[in-house]
């Protein structure tokens, strides 16, 4: 017990980071916390509007298509589960890239970064397909062709929120892919070897996992409940 107290006073005593992390990582964490409030505000607004509206479309009736499906075949949740798994897998490859960075293993970093970038692009393609498909069905900001679960006319806020929030998330994925590509280029240019550490990859990784984390919430709020 006493050693623990000594440890704490020492770590807060100044002259060093109390958390033993560099300032960039600390800032990244607090930025993500701040961004969590951005997404939180979006999702909570969505919930508020849903609570203040009579009736809401059934997601299984809306999101039931997938690419190359034969005419008339509907499979709710299938396509979005594919998207979810793509994002989880790309998150795993990112973890492996960060780990490889810790071990100063440039080759593995490059390999896993490429896989992560591919995962990100795959997710974005899926999203583009889904948006395009919904648009063809007549859905867009301010337009909602879907009916409520009980057969009454639905508020346009269903599509408004869907496109705004998945769009904002997609924008985060897009910027994450850009960041990852920059990290990949920097790795290939031996920038991190020269610095002697791969901490930048770790920060990019935090951002990428956060994007995955947000998807967990978006997925649940729009497709499941």
């Amino acid at each position, binding site marked *: 017990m006493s050693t623990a107290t000594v440890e704490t006073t020492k770590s807060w005593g100044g002259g*060093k980071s109390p958390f*033993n992390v560099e*300032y960039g990582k600390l800032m990244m964490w607090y930025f993500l916390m701040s961004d969590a409030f951005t997404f939180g*505000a*979006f999702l909570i607004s969505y919930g508020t509007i849903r609570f203040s509206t009579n009736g809401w479309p059934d997601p299984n009736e809306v999101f039931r298509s997938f690419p190359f499906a034969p005419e008339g075949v509907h499979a709710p949740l299938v396509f979005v589960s594919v998207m979810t798994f793509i994002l989880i897998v790309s998150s795993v490859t990112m973890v492996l890239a960060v780990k490889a960075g810790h071990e100063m293993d440039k080759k593995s970093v490059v390999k896993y970064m490429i896989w992560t970038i591919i995962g990100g692009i795959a997710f974005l393609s899926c999203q583009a397909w889904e948006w395009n498909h919904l648009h063809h069905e007549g859905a867009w*900001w301010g337009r909602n062709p879907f009916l409520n679960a009980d057969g009454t006319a639905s*508020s*346009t*806020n269903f599509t408004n929120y869907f496109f705004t929030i998945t769009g904002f998330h997609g924008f985060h994925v897009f910027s994450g892919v850009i960041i990852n590509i920059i990290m990949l280029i920097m790795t290939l240019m031996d920038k991190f070897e020269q610095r002697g550490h791969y901490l930048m990859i770790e920060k990019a990784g935090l951002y990428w996992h956060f994007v995955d984390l947000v998807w967990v919430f978006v997925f649940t709020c729009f497709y499941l409940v």
Partner: protein
Amino acid sequence: MSHEAVLHGDAHGHDDHGHHEHHDTFLTKYVFSQDHKMIAKQFLITGMVWAVLGGLMSVLFRLQLGYPDSTFPFLEDLLGKWGKGGRITPEAYYALVTTHGTVLVFFVLTAGLSGTFANFLIPLQVGARDMASPFMNMLSYWFFFAASIVMLSSMFVETGPFSGGWTAYPPLSALGDASPGSKTGMDLWIISMALFVVSSLLGGLNYIATILNMRTKGMSMTRLPLTIWALFFTAVLGVLSFPVLFSGFILLIFDRNFGTSFYLSDIFVNGVGALPNEGGSAILYQHLFWFLGHPEVYIILLPAMGMVSEILSINSRKPIFGYMAMIGSLFAIAILAFLVWAHHMFVTGLNPFLGSVFVLLTLLIAVPSAIKVFNWLTTLWRGNIRFTPAMLFAIGFVSLFISGGLTGIWLGNSALDIHLHDTYFVIAHFHIVMGVASMFGMFAGIYHWFPKMYGKQLNNTLGYIHFWVTIAGAYLIFWPMHYEGLAGMPRRYYDFSIWESFKQFGELNKFISLVSMIVFMVQLLFLFNFFYSIFKGRKLTNQNPWDATTLEWTAPINPGHGNWVGEIPEVHRWPYDYGKDGVDFIAQTTPVGADESQH
């Protein structure tokens, strides 16, 4: 770069050369400077420009309120079609009120106050060469600058700046046809505010990381001056609440431009639905806005509280009373700030039961506020007080905080609020407790740290005139407004002279307008003092003019980029050792003696 250097940030990289002005050009030294002290001055001077503009706006609309029947030909020269026939038009009046609010709240009292003092004081008082990321710090200023330019340009568009109140409630903000200012003016307003959110985020992250990570050796968290604690909580509030406003604005942009109806429930004109889309909720916007809006009040107030604590202690030559209680109450205020937002919405359709929960949480704020007030008073108690201008403004802050805080207890009750909401009572309350009080904190800070900023002294006589006129004026302007508000006089009305029941206040309104002009003039006197002293002020000969203990006074009189020549001093004690063991003050850098008593 070694791992140690990585852990401690870029700024420590130039440990070996405290000064490196040799390769500074004009552009890197004064414009795109990454030195936290220069960035602080940039924030301060931009804030001052906005304060003058915002103040001038209030004088103009006070002219309308005080003299609704008179015409002033100069208004037509100044405002063109907005001042036709020497009278401010109703559209211009609302534009002035809106811009006055936005500018003063965000640009002056947020960026100008915490931007200036967080930048200036954090590295100097925690003992760091610069912010954690000087580059991001520079970006923070330039985003603020861009926001300023966009806001300024909104005043020159044909349809005028936004005129739906600084809170920008829909539908006035969501429908382009709602008022002249809702068109281009609102677009520019929202762009400007989005840039401002980015600026405050970049700044806030930097402040937090610097305070946590870059304290000098021995500067534990409980040895930090209260200014730093206050600025720390300010930054936390900003980082957590501005993103919510940002989300709210994104939804608002969609409502304005892309045919959505997040905030538009339904509007009927002659029995026909007037909106293309409906089904949203205007209350949702108010929730999102005030989720930022209430923490924002404390973003404005906390830095002032921190600086006042510091200045009161230094100029009473006594340790601050209840240091830990001060930190605890700052923490409590920061938490409560996030829990009470809906007390701004008691009469807008909020659920009454939910409202009563918000009443309870709101009244809880009185506890930490009272702790702070009593601690300030007991710090003054039997102190050896030096009435410098900074000290007078600090005492003025305490006075205003008490007067304005007490009316907050009235307004925090949802039942009383039914009568008082949107009246001059509210205007009086928040101008005293948040507006003028924070301004006083800012003035106290400027008078106190001016020698550190510019290596010169401000003129004391002008400072005393500035203080006495301003405090008298502040009370003369806002105290009578309480009576007007209790009588039911609503805010944001263009002309009260047509109501029989408000005619009795005609002379009072004239008086308030007159005083506001005098107070505005005196602020110009302060500006003269400020700029004159930068160039012609008495040169500082003593590194530590106030006999203070904190670290910034151990740096050279005009510190270069890097703040200290040679090693950064080590800290051995808390910052409030005044009058200890009969010694006037003991600097934080002095090691603790063997026979010294405990504090």
